């Protein structure tokens, strides 16, 4: 009987920090752009027959979340738009020009979350303000939690994917690629290392 009591006290003493950890405030993460474990890819229809895909190579950001309180999570990302890369020097030059991204005038794009809706089952929607080509508009990203845990090198990581889309015209992009190519789809992979 005494033994059981001791065991109960000991086990609850050992388990207690785990419950405390679970109810603690959300942890902060820096997006692992240093190790390139994060991607901002875009996809635009080409003539309605196919797609052009590309990415922004240079960006940075951080996020804060707790898997049990997803609606309190937040994320900020800054993108250097002149790092646009569609694997074609002439097209990238055109993308940087005032016809598209106007990178000389607007070198930065950013996304700042304003609220997160937990949809359950690891799915959630991140609402935020997206600033692109000098225009700021609300944008919702459909996100999925992929996983979190210790990495083999002594750190702690968490990762998500996200998708969203917007009309180029809404962000003042001048070039008209035709009705089939009016929208940009964004595919995001965000892996963070706990600070």
């Amino acid at each position, binding site marked *: 009987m005494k033994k059981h009591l001791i065991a109960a006290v000991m086990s609850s003493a050992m388990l207690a920090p785990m419950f405390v950890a679970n109810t603690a405030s959300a942890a902060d993460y820096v997006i692992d752009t240093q190790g390139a474990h994060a991607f901002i890819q875009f996809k635009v229809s080409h003539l309605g027959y196919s797609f052009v895909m590309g990415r922004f190579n240079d960006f940075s950001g951080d996020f804060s979340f707790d898997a049990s309180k997803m609606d309190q999570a937040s994320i900020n990302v800054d993108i250097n738009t*002149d790092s646009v890369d569609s*694997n*074609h*020097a*002439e097209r*990238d*030059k055109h993308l*940087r020009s005032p016809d598209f991204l106007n990178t000389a005038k607007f070198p930065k794009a950013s996304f700042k979350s304003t609220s997160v809706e937990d949809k359950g089952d690891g799915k959630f929607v991140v609402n935020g303000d997206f600033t692109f080509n000098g225009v700021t508009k609300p944008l919702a990203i459909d996100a999925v939690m992929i996983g979190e845990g210790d990495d083999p090198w002594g750190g702690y990581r968490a990762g998500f994917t996200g998708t969203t889309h917007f009309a180029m015209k809404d962000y003042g992009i001048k*070039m*008209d*690629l*035709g009705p089939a190519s009016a929208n940009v789809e964004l595919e995001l992979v965000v892996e963070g290392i706990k600070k």
Partner: protein
Amino acid sequence: MLNNSSTEYGLITIFIHWISALAVLSLFALGFWMVDLTYYSSWYKTAPDIHKSVGILLLFLTTIRLLWRFWATMPAPMPTHQQWEHQSARWAHRIIYVLMLAIMVSGILISTADGRGIWVFDWFQFPAVGELFDDQADIAGAFHQYAAYSLIGLVFIHAAGALKHHFIDKDSTLTRMLRVKR
């Protein structure tokens, strides 16, 4: 007939001069026009392809032209012209050659920054030089544009000078570049 003499231009020099003049003016007009084409214009892809192909061919012709210039006899400047006219004409010609080469090289640097070569009318591919410096396509692009404006400015002065000598001075500056004396 083919070769220059000390007073007259031969057929080879005259031919290269006028082919180059036609190419430079056409390339400028085509380049100026094509950059504002809409995506669904049937010329959106074709015009840059022609521009690049003609540009590469002009680079070959200009290389031959410069070699020819050093190798062949060049007619002396018109004796009726002033010394300052000889000097300014000489420098205008030198700067025209330098600008032409610089424009063609910068054009190649725009298109081949990603390691893709330039197809010349589906005949052959001019090899890529790759990315030699950061932001190569943008820097070379801005240079290409302003150097082309400068060249056209000089071409205008060059042509105005030729017309002035023809119509006002009534000398053979222009006609000796137009016809071959036997």
